[in-house]
């Protein structure tokens, strides 16, 4: 937990006891994490673990039942929507519109929180320049004039990212940005996220692929049934015991021969050929202290 103290001093993202209820049912319960500035954090967990809801609550899109989210000196949950949208941006999955917007139109939406509410006329030169730059960074300037609805999933993901960057966020939240993308598109999005973090943007992204989480993230937050299951450096959290508890699969952690990144070879447990999770592994609220020997299995060479 050495890294996590920094958030409490006001320099990073500090989530305290965040609970979110939708329709009376708790979706996220009492999650507390602290993430340093300029880091990439992967939020992982099975389907329905509350990853998307967690991110949406951080972005203020769904209301939190209780808890606080601090970013620097700001209480994000009490900030006005407009001021919050200048600090953080959210890239959701499957963003859909019926309007025949061009890619540039969509990216320009990212300037809305910076534009006065009442104003006539088109984008200012400053807006236009930031939009062009965001499209260049996210590599979608090539198809800036195409209609959004005609784009492939990977292209839409890039446009969503460019729109978020046009907001000039300090904190960037992404919901499974590699979903439905081909391998090259997945890796290039992750590479871009890493580069943005190195620029100083703090990134929190829901991820499904453990190998992605292991190779890109500085921190991982493991959610299960809406509760925090584990958090910390991926080397100490993404260990076979945790993976089995959370996903109900056996994991063998290998190393990529060239990049030395961890590669997770997953299999259904041999004693459960149908893959159904054992009852005790679904008990909510269990937290895990990773044991040192499994940690050492793949983190020791570094």
């Amino acid at each position, binding site marked *: 937990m050495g*890294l996590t103290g920094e958030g409490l001093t006001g*320099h*990073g993202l500090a989530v305290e006891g965040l609970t979110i209820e939708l329709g009376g049912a708790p979706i996220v319960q009492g999650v507390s994490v602290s993430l340093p*500035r300029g*880091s990439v954090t992967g939020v992982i967990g099975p389907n329905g673990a509350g990853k998307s809801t967690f991110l949406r609550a951080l*972005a*203020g*899109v*769904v209301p939190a039942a209780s808890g606080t989210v601090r970013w620097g000196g700001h209480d994000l949950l009490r900030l*006005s*929507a*407009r*001021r*919050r*949208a*200048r600090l953080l*941006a*959210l890239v*959701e999955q499957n*963003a859909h*519109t*019926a*309007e*025949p*917007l061009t890619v*540039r*139109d*969509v990216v*320009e*939406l*990212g300037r*809305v*929180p910076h*534009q006065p*509410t*009442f*104003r*006539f006329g*088109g984008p200012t*030169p*400053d807006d*236009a*320049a*930031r*939009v*062009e*730059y965001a499209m260049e*960074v996210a590599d979608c300037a090539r198809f800036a*004039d195409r209609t959004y609805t005609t784009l492939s999933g990977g292209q839409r993901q890039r446009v969503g990212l460019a729109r978020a*960057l046009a*907001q*000039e*966020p*300090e904190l960037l939240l992404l919901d499974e940005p590699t979903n439905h993308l081909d391998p090259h598109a997945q890796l290039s999005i992750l590479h871009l996220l890493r580069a*943005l*973090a190195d*620029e*100083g*943007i703090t990134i929190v992204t829901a991820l499904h692929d453990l190998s992605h989480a292991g190779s890109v993230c*500085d921190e991982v937050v493991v959610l299960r049934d809406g509760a925090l299951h584990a958090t910390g450096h991926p080397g100490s959290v993404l260990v076979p015991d945790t993976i089995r508890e959370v996903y109900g699969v056996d994991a063998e952690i290998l190393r990529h021969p060239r990049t030395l990144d961890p590669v997770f070879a997953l299999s259904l447990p041999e004693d459960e050929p149908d893959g159904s999770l054992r009852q005790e592994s679904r008990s909510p609220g269990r937290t895990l202290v990773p044991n040192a020997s499994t940690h050492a299995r793949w983190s020791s060479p570094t």
Partner: protein
Amino acid sequence: MTATRPPRLRPAVTVRGAGDLPPAGGSLRPIAIGVLLVVALALSIGVAVTMGPADLTVGDVVASVLSRWGGADPGLTPIEEGIIWSLRLPRVLAAAAVGAGLALCGAVMQATTRNPLADPYLLGLSSGASVGAVVALLIGTQALLPAAAFIGAMAALLATLGLAHLAGGLTPARTILAGVAVSSLGGALTSLLIFWHAQGDSYRDILSWLMGSLSGVQWNQTALAAAALVVVGVPIAASARLLDAFAFGDAAAAALGVRVTAVRWLMLSGTAVLTGVLVSMSGAIGFIGLVIPHAARLLVGPGYRTLLPVSALTGAVLLIWADTAARTAFDPRELPVGIVTAVIGAPVFALLLARRKGGS
């Protein structure tokens, strides 16, 4: 590793040479279309006033208008002056204001409900406004006519959205169905009220409230409609970016810093005010609010900064000509203008429905 990096206050993407890049392309086209539409509107007003019995030319109209502001005497007879000033000019300008206002309301409703079929007529606001106006007329409080029409429009809006919500959410189809129900009820109430108090020929009255008519419009009504258009339309047009932000849905708009519920209700209340004032003068005119924004999208694209003014101008021009056709086509008998707009609008509505077949 990352923990040791010094925190930066503004670590966002830095822009190289901000201001060097040209503004986004294609910005000349909307301006050109806007200028064309302004010219078309001015021409339409001038020509429409000459249409009908009495041998007037556009030159006569212009000279007559100029003479009011210190120009030379146009040399028209008092009857010709009267036709221009008391009959046709207020009516043509009223048609322009109503057309612009309804088109604007349609565009705003389509954006805030994310429903391409939304407009004041289909969602029942117009018929609700008619009920309010007729009630005010029957009670004999002519001065409260626009306010009563606004209350009627607002009640109809709440009824439509409430009904759609009860039926399981504001999907386009449910909202339209709820609007049809509210609209029918409003039409029936209007008819019943007029019929009950009938003195002689009530059918003309009923028709003009249900299908719209601009006959007998006075200058003070025209002025009120124009004032409502400016007071409601200008702030909405100035905050068009908020409407753009609804393109990806409520959650995305909220993530862009838009106070979704407040903005939606402010915008929809604004359309109810405008619809109320316009309908209290013209009755319920259909299809302008539905069709014009879609035509404007084809012209200038989906951005509301340009879409709202272009919709308003197009709506003004279209309703001027629809009303001119309504009063001259079967001269000396007048058609309700709603018949003309329906003849134009219904096929377009059918086309929109057909295009949505795959989508929803």
